[in-house]
């Protein structure tokens, strides 16, 4: 399953990294505490968070996430988009809550 599949199935809006939607999604992680995400997430995870500032990009790069989904319609800061574009990390937005989007992703990953 790749990021493009998630975008299509879940109606996510792509804010950057549209050319990197072929990245493989091997799992997911939900969290807004960066240290928790650093400790707990895995390479290939799609990260669900409400944090929209630029520091999320470094976390995703270090952990080799397949993408970041911002919840409840949060829009990424200008700097976040800039950085994510440079690093080739897809930045996606949903109107759904973290709980709802994580549940749907889980359902797609574990049908």
């Amino acid at each position, binding site marked *: 399953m790749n990021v493009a599949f998630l975008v299509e199935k879940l109606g996510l809006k792509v804010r950057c990294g549209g050319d990197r939607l072929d990245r493989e999604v091997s799992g997911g992680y939900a969290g807004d505490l960066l*240290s928790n995400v650093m400790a707990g997430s895995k390479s290939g995870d799609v990260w669900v968070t409400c944090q929209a*500032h630029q520091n999320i990009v*470094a976390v995703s790069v270090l*952990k080799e996430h397949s993408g970041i989904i911002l919840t409840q319609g949060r829009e990424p800061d200008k700097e976040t988009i800039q950085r994510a574009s440079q690093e080739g990390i897809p930045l996606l937005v949903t109107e759904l809550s973290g709980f709802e989007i994580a549940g749907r992703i889980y359902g797609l990953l574990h049908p």
Partner: protein
Amino acid sequence: MTQGHNYVFPVEGERFDEAGKVSVQVKQILKKIGIPDAVLRRAAIAIYESEVNIISYAIHGTASLQVTDDHILIDIQDVGPGITDIEQAMEQGYSTANDHIRAMGFGAGMGLFNIKNCSDIFEMSSEEGKGTHLKITINR
């Protein structure tokens, strides 16, 4: 800055916009040297958390990386307020971070705990009013 596998990176306090800069570089360096992914991930996390600590609490500091045949040695030194009670600071969930830091998702009281978890040997010393020194050893 570079002599063999020795590197020193400066880190400035309050520069949240730069958080992760050093760890991303270190990860690339370790990858180039041929350090296995599982090992370099631990080094990257330890340095990331150290960077964030300097940025959050200190005036400035340095992150040094030395790679030997057997170990990855990371040395973190900062000039800052220091830590009064190291035992307490090591407790998961304990943090002195202000609201601004917490609002960004930092300051959850997990940083030092994460660093220790990623280390094979972890040593920390601190002097109030002067700064903090971390010595992190990770086996290759």
